């Protein structure tokens, strides 16, 4: 736990508070403006499918640029060195490009409003309900993590007690989502993306000046305990004698395939951003446009982590102010004068809010459409579901306050969230990918593959918590949990399909690769636009090549 002691008490002056206040006035202003423009429940949930691709693309990456992303990745930068880059490159870019090129035509073209809805049409109601409920639970648990992180920073930076910080943070998130819906959430995410960068860039610049530029940083990192290993990404990954303790198979297949594809392609808080794009092409470009800033974000997260490693004495303590998690706040305190300090604090607070807002808006869409409208109250008018959506938002925020206190019980929230991903996203990805490319997969195979995949990962996690099964680290457990869930889900799908009837082909139109429907045809997937910079395939290829090129000097 962070204690609001001297090292972390930021000395904000009136101008810093002015910058902070202006941000929240703007954000609430957008909410009220959006509210005036909102007429239907489709508006509320999917922003009426009207956003240009650059807006949804930045919102896409911003929805991921939450509390854990910034503090966690800077912490990992200080702890593991440049191997943290794997989370940005091999662990994100291929999956984002795959989502845009291959999977988005299914999502956008089938006009589904959520991932569970896609499962209902591809499989059956049981699969749908299982996923809707597990998704709602996952979103609430992750919302709690984001809220807890937001509260930690309020507490540490501004000196507020934890519980007040949690309640105030929740209240702000609630106001901004409930008055404006996703439309305001998306606008705020784009706005906040720029504010975060404006706050993180000065930390990198001033920090680099302090350590004597890039050369100075490299020299000083070599003299730390991590040594030269902190400056490589793939060196010594034939074995596990590297800072991350993982070999290249684990990095490429565990992180780069199962965990990363599971997260980016089935996480509805992310996919929803693309579904609000104004047309198919914009939807497909959404994650790919997001991949470009994703490539460069480590400059303002991992690099400050390294700077903190060499400049902050005592960093890496077990608890107190000098844990790795506090790398960024410690640097802000040490390097930023009032003014840019206010921008940085605003950027951090905005980023923590965005994480929770994304979870809550994902939760209220799934709760309203997939649980309430599908199984509890059917066939009401649009105004009714709009009202249910608003109530679900309030309920979601209140539950988030509860789960924030659960998160407070974990001493490493980053590992907690990785465990949640291995439980919820890995089996879902397996079920999805098989169902999308194998038309024979039966409805019940979908249900059992999802259920047993989740169950196996959960069992492994509980056995690990109960000390029955041992792993070297929490991270290793989440990798094995995700891998197990993936294998169990695929094998179950293959077996159950042999014993249950396949879905009639006419019900699979537009939902399975190669099954009719303009949206999923090879022509639509391969063919792009006449203008090259709007061609998703070309943009995707550029993103992947850039990731490879960036690895070369840092292998």
């Amino acid at each position, binding site marked *: 736990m962070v204690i609001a002691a001297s090292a972390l008490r930021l000395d904000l002056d009136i101008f810093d508070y002015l910058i902070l206040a*202006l941000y929240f006035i703007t954000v609430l202003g*957008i909410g009220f403006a959006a509210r005036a423009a909102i007429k239907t429940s489709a508006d509320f949930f999917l922003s009426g499918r009207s956003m240009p691709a650059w807006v949804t693309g930045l919102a896409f990456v911003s929805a991921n640029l939450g509390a854990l992303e910034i503090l966690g990745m800077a912490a990992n930068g200080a702890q593991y060195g440049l191997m943290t880059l794997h989370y940005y490159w091999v662990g994100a870019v291929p999956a984002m490009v795959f989502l845009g090129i291959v999977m988005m035509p299914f999502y956008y073209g089938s006009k589904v409003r959520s991932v569970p809805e896609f499962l209902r049409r591809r499989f059956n109601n049981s699969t749908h309900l299982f996923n809707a409920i597990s998704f709602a639970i996952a979103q609430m648990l992750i919302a709690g993590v984001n809220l807890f992180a937001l509260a930690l920073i309020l507490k540490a930076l501004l000196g507020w007690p934890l519980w007040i910080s949690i309640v105030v943070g929740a209240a702000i998130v609630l106001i901004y989502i409930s008055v404006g819906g996703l439309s305001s959430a998306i606008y705020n995410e784009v706005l906040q993306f720029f504010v975060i960068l404006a706050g993180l860039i000065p930390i990198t610049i001033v920090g680099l000046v302090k350590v004597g530029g890039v050369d100075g940083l490299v020299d000083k990192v070599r003299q730390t305990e991590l040594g030269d290993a902190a400056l490589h990404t793939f060196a010594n990954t034939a074995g596990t004698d590297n800072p991350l303790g993982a070999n290249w198979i684990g990095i490429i297949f565990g992180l780069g395939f199962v965990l990363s594809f599971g997260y980016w392609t089935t996480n509805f808080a992310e996919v929803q951003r693309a579904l609000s794009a104004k047309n198919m092409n914009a939807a497909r470009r959404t994650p790919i446009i997001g991949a470009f800033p994703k490539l460069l974000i480590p400059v303002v997260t991992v690099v400050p982590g390294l700077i903190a490693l060499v400049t902050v004495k005592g960093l890496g303590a077990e608890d107190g102010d000098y844990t790795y998690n506090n790398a960024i706040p410690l640097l802000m305190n040490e390097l930023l004068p009032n*003014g840019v300090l206010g921008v940085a604090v605003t950027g951090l607070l905005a980023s923590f809010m965005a994480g929770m807002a994304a979870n809550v808006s994902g939760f209220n869409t799934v709760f309203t459409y997939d649980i309430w409208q599908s199984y509890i109250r059917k066939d009401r008018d649009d105004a009714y579901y709009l009202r249910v959506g608003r109530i679900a938002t309030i309920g979601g925020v209140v539950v988030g306050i509860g789960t924030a206190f659960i998160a407070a019980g974990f001493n490493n929230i980053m590992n907690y969230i990785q465990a949640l991903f291995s439980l919820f996203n890995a089996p879902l990805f397996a079920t999805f990918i098989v169902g999308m490319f194998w038309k024979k997969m039966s409805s019940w195979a979908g249900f059992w593959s999802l259920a047993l995949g989740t169950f196996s990962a959960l069992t492994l996690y509980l056995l690990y918590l109960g000390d029955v099964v041992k792993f070297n680290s929490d991270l290793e457990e989440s990798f094995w949990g995700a891998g197990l869930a993936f294998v169990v889900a695929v094998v179950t799908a293959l077996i159950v399909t042999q014993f249950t009837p396949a879905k009639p082909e006419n019900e699979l139109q537009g939902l399975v690769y190669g099954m009719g429907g303009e949206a999923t045809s090879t022509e639509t997937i391969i063919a792009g636009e006449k203008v090259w910079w709007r061609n998703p395939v070309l943009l995707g290829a550029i993103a992947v090549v850039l990731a490879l090129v960036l690895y070369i000097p840092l292998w």
Partner: protein
Amino acid sequence: MADQSRTSKAARLFDVRRVIGGLFVVYGVIVTLLGLFDNQAEIDKAQGVRINLWMGLAMLALGLLMLLWLKLSPPEAPEEAPEPEKQAD
């Protein structure tokens, strides 16, 4: 989905470029002014870099660029050719 035409019109009432541009112009002015009047202690804290001044000017430039972009390509004008994928329901 029903209400397709109504929804897209409603959501275009305000443009994110105006919001980003406006906020960054204000931030830019505040931070640039702070940068101009920074005392030596603050400059020393930032390792001798006039970070407020530079970041203030950069934010101001970004804000003005956003507003300029908005002026050159207003939200009412169609930004792209009608999409070929549009499906008949």
